[in-house]
């Protein structure tokens, strides 16, 4: 598998933290996105009758990932949805980094979905995105 993530036991006592990895920046984004979607609900129990296209441009990949994950949290509250998956494309053009994504999910339904944590936001505590060789990784602490 080109991407992976794991939840961290030893930091963020009252909240949740995960470490995500990928063989490319795009894979890292997929991995971190999957970690966040699974924090909210089991994606396998969520339908795909809600869809939103998201475009973002930032000066560096760390800011881009932070803003993208924050956007997922925003749509969770603003549209009252949880998510099945996200189609993600990340590109670099000169000094800027761009993301085009399609976020898919469905309105919250306690009867049919396995719901987990109501994430309040993405924080910058111990937030880190780095590249070592071809491998990208990120550490993200989420406020629940």
């Amino acid at each position, binding site marked *: 598998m080109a991407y992976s993530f794991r939840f961290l*036991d030893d930091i963020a006592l009252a909240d949740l933290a995960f470490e995500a990895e990928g063989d490319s920046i795009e894979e890292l984004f997929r991995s971190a996105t999957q970690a966040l979607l699974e924090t909210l609900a089991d994606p396998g129990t969520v339908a795909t009758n809600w869809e939103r296209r998201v475009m973002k441009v930032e000066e560096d990949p760390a800011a881009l990932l932070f803003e993208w994950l924050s956007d997922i949290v925003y749509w969770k*509250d603003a549209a*009252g949805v949880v998510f099945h998956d996200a189609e993600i494309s990340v590109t670099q053009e000169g000094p800027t980094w761009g993301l085009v994504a399609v976020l898919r999910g469905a309105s*919250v339904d306690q009867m049919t979905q396995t719901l987990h944590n109501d994430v*309040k936001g993405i924080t*910058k*505590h111990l937030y880190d995105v780095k590249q070592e060789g071809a491998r990208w990784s990120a550490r993200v602490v989420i406020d*629940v």
Partner: protein
Amino acid sequence: MTLKTEMQVNRITNEVWEIPVTEKPGMVVPARIYATPAILHSMDRGVFDQVTNVACLPGITRHALCMPDGHWGYGFPIGGVAAFDVATGVISPGGVGYDVNCGMRLIRTDLTLEDVQPKLDRLMTELFRRVPAGVGASGFVRLNRDAFDSVMTRGARWCIEEGYGWHRDLARIEEGGCIAAADPSTVSDHAVGRGINQLGTLGSGNHYLEVQVVSNDRIFDSETAAALGLTGQDQIVVMVHCGSRGFGHQVASDYLKIFEKAMRRYGITVKDQQLACAPFRSPEGQDYFAAMNCAANTAFANRQVITHQIRAAFAHVFGLSAEELGMELVYDVAHNIAKVERYPEGELLVHRKGSTRAFGPGSPDVPRDFQKIGQPVICGGSMETGSYVLVGTDRAVQETFGSTMHGAGRTMSRAQAKKSIRGEQLQQDMKRRGILVKAVSMSGLAEEAGVAYKNISEVVDTVDRAGITKKVAELRPIGNIKG
């Protein structure tokens, strides 16, 4: 057992410990931690690091404080208290917390355990139906932008005008449920988008609605308890713990970003990015204060709408009106907020993050009914143990900027709790012990197991012995709703 810090920690009394300014470069004032030796030793490294980071902030006055329920937080520790000179000091979203005006509310009833036990299952089902909880839940109150602006500026007063409560409720809410210095123009559309559908919802994490019993053998001061409407005759009360939901979080996130840039302009450096701050009197500082107050008012309104639903649920199940059931508000108090208050040093901006205001008898900010006993302080324990009602003291005003503890405080991470406990098993075990739990998420339930928290009785005894709050009654859970 050794302390989880290399810094020197000096004993002031058995409940007060001080880290001198020499222990970290940049400390402006000493840091003080309220704890017994046992609690001090159980505190995580983050408490010591973070309370001393706070002690480095510009304009901080007297001491940076941490209460005995303290643990690691974002920037400030949870349980942190810091007061800043309004002219020279800063305001920091990290000192308020992301969930602005997260707080506690307690509602009394005339019902007893004997009345409620046979109908407990039905009551909890009705409460679970009427008070939405968990991921993405939206409330029954439908608001347009104008109405939401009114919620931001009028708080619980808006609810009373709309019929969600009784006028006399307002006298039993900190600040009368409405903080004046709130300006919706300082709030982003993003924040409004997250908050507009969430009025009357609990959320998840450590937020809950709990049906509790007050027994005679758990009343420590019967005169004060009586003044609060607590009889102790196996009386049923209802506790609510929640805040401003996604709205407050977005306000905090928005201004952390603004403050990161503003700090460069004002030449402020901080030990931790999550301590981002701005001079209180700066345009950025004033805007955050106004936006934070919008979120604080929204939290008061949130708990008021939930109260309306709780009263309706009880009335439905017991076939009597909420008035006939004696469902008066005991008190509603914030534990994540920054407020301008007057102390011997002058006007100070007091940040309380996971800390409750605890003004003593005679304070003009204490409701008329409680002038003789002091301000009620409501502290929630884990869902498996008890919660407490306490009252504020003059000593708190003298020593801790009128502040005390807010809850039990965690000792185990959510990830660890989830690995060692199964939600379904916990729910069954609690049912056997007489606590009926309704939860949206079983994994979320596991994260909130009692073993993940400190023993609240030890925490309460610490503040009681330190004299910064006096304990009045312990409340035992029989029903709990979690997101």
